C-alpha cells in the first residue's frame, strides 16, 4: 500500500503549483485553472486521509468541494466573459480599477 505521506506530498506539490501559477500568471483563464489545481491538491489529501482512516466523511467532503468548484467555474467564467466584454483584455494587471 502506498504510504499516506506520498499522497500528501503530491497534494502539496499540486497546491504549490496552483499557488505559483495563480501568482505569476497574467491571463485570467490560466489563473482560474490554477485555482482548480489548488482545489484538487486539497481533494487529494482529503481522499488520502479518508482511505487511511477508513472514514467516509473525507470522501463526502470531496464531493462537496467538486460541486462548489463546478458552481464557481460557472460563475467565474461568466465574470471572465463580462470582464472581457467591457475591458477587451484578459490580462489581470490591466484590470486594476479596484483600488484606493
Amino acid at each position, binding site marked *: 500500500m502506498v504510504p499516506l505521506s506520498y499522497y500528501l506530498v503530491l497534494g502539496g506539490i499540486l497546491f504549490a503549483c496552483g*499557488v505559483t501559477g*495563480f*501568482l*505569476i500568471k*497574467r491571463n485570467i483563464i490560466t*489563473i482560474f485553472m490554477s485555482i482548480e489545481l489548488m482545489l484538487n491538491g486539497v481533494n487529494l489529501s482529503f481522499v488520502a486521509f479518508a482511505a487511511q482512516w477508513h472514514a467516509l466523511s473525507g470522501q463526502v467532503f470531496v464531493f462537496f468541494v467538486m460541486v462548489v468548484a463546478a458552481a464557481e467555474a460557472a460563475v467565474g467564467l461568466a465574470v471572465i466573459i463580462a470582464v472581457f466584454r467591457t475591458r477587451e483584455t484578459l490580462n*489581470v*494587471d490591466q*484590470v*486594476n*480599477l*479596484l*483600488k*484606493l
Partner: protein
Amino acid sequence: MTPNLHLCLIPLLPLAGAAINGLLGKRFSRQLVSAIALGFCGAAFAMALWVAAEFSALNIPHVETLAAWIRAGGFQADFAFYLDQLSLVMLLVVTGVGFLIHIYSVGYMWEEGGFYRFFAYLNLFMFFMLTLVLASNYLLMFIGWEGVGLASYLLIGFWFTKDSAAAAGRKAFIVNRIGDFGFLIALFLMIQQFGSLSFGQVFLGVAQRGVESGTGLLTSIGLLLMVGAAGKSAQIPLYVWLPDAMEGPTPVSALIHAATMVTAGVYMVSRSHAIFERAPVALMVVAIVGTLTALFAATIGICQTDIKKVLAYSTISQLGYMFMACGVGAFSMGIFHLMTHAFFKGLLFLAAGSVIHAVGGEQDMRKMGGLRTKIPWTFWTMTAATFAIAGFPPFAGFFSKDAILFQAFTSRYGSWVYWAIGVFTAFLTSFYMFRLWFLTFFGEYRGEEASGHDEHSRTGARAPHGHGGIHESPKVMLVPLVILAMLSVCGGWIGSVRFDNFLSPALHSVSPAIENAAAMRKEASVSEGLLTSVSIVAALGGFGMAWLLYQRRPQLPREIAGALGGFYDAVLHKYYVDELYAVLFVKPLVDGSTKLLWHGIDRDVIDATLDNSADGAQRVSDAARHMQSGNIRSYAGWVAAGAAAVIAYMVWVGVR
C-alpha cells in the same frame, strides 16, 4: 390686612421700557424713544411716590411675594419684595435721581448714535437697581447686584468702538467679579448656617447668636459681604475700576457711578447691619477701609486735571465716608450721606457734563476757565453742589458729613483717629472741589475756541455739532440741574436726628450694647458744637487754600509741586496703584495663562495628544493603504503570504 401695593411693578416698568426700546427702538424716532424711556422711568418714580404716601398705613416690613422661584428641600427663595424705611429711602433716591438723569440724558445724548440703545440700557439699569433695592432675600438682591454690574459694563463701553472705553468696561466688570465672589461665598455661608437667604430668616438666625468677641462665623460673613461691597462701591483695594468708568457718557457717570449703583455696597452693608453689629471685627474693618479710602482717594483727587476724574475720585472718597459711618455703627448716617451724596454728586456730574458740552468736549480743566458768565445756569447749580460736597452749612452735604464725623468720634466703635482723618479728608474735599470750581469758572478762558466738536465726536459716530462757541446747554438739561441744585441745598434740612428716627425701625440696633452707647454716648466730653465748628473750619480752610492757589497766586501750585518732587509725582500717577496691580496680578495672570495654560497645557499637551494620535493613525494607514494596489495578483500574494504566516505559526506552535 395689608394692602397689595404691587411693588413688583416698580422694577418691571423700567424693564418694559428697556425691552420696548431695546428690541424695537432702532426704527423709532428719537422723540418716541425718549417718550418711552421717560414714561416708564417716570411711572416707576410716580409709583415710588405713591408707595411713600401709603407708607404710614403699612405694616413694616411689608413683604409681597410675586412668585415662587427656587424651592429645593428646605431651602426657599422667592421673587418677593421687601419694603421698609431703608428700601423706601433707596427707592425714592434711585427713581427720583434716576428720572432726573433720564431727562438730562435726552438733551445730552440727542445728537448721539445709538440713542435708543442708550435709553434701553439706562432703563435696564433702573430695573436691576430697583430689584436690588426691593429684594426680600439676598439671592434676588444678588440678581440685581449682578444686573447693575452688567448695565454698568454696557454703559461704560457705550462707545465701544473706542478702545479705552471697551477696556474700561471690561476692567469694571472684572474687578466687580472679584467682589461678587466674596458676596457669593457669604451667601453660601448663610445658606449653610441659616438654611435661608430671606432677610427675615437670616436675621432671625443671626439674632440667636451673641456678639462675637473675636472672629467667628458672623465675622467671616461680614468680611465677605464687605469684599462684595468694596467691589461694587469702589473701596480699597477694588476701587481702581471707578475712575476708568468715566469713559462712559456723562449721564451714566452721574447715575450709575456716582448717585446710585456704587452706593449699593453701602445699602447692602446697612441692610446686613444685624450681622455686622454682632461682628465687631468686621465692623472695624469696614470703618478702616472706609476711612482709608476716603483719605486716599481725596489725595489723588487733588492732582487730577480731568474734570470727570476729579469727580470720580471724589465719589470714591465720599463712599469711603459712608463706609466709615457704617463701620462705626451709624448705619442711618451712612444712608443719609448716601442720599445727600446722590443729590450733589449727581448734580456735579451733570453740571460737569454741561460744562464739557459747553466747551466742545474738552475735559481738561487746565483748558477751561472763566466760564462763569458764559454758562450761568451751569455755574450756579454747580456752585450749589460744590458748596454742598465741601460741607458748608446749610447745604445738604454739611448735615450728613458732619453727622458722620460726629458719630465717628463719639460712637462706641468710633475713635478720634477716624474723626481726625475724616476732618482732614473734609479739608481735602473742600480744597479739590474749589480747585475744580476756580479752574473751571474763574480766571481767563484758557482753551482754544470751541470748533463745534464735543465729547462724542471723538468717536466719529456722528456728524459734528451744529453750533460752535461756548454755549449754555438746552433747557431739557438745565431743568434737572436746577431741581438737583435745590435738593443739594435743602436735602439736608431733614436733619440727621429726624432721619435717624425715621430709619431706626429698619436699622434698629439688635445689640443692646450699641443701643446703650447710642443713648449715653461714650462720654459727653466733647460737645457737638465743637466738632461741628472744626469741620466748618476744615471746609473753609479748603476753600481758602483753593482760592489762594488757583485764584490769587496761580503760579504757586507749580512751585509747590516742584518742591514736593517725588511725592507729587506719586500722587499725580495715582500712587502707581494701577501699575502695581498690573505687575502683581494682571501680568502674572496673563503670563501664566499665556505661557502655562495656553502654550504649556492647551497647546503642548491637549492639542498635541490629539494631533499626534491623528498624525500617527494617518501615517500607519498611509503605509497600509499601499497594500490595496488594485493589482489582483498582489492581492493573491498577500493572501498567500498570510496563509504561509498562519501555517508557519501553527508549525511553530506544534513544534513547541
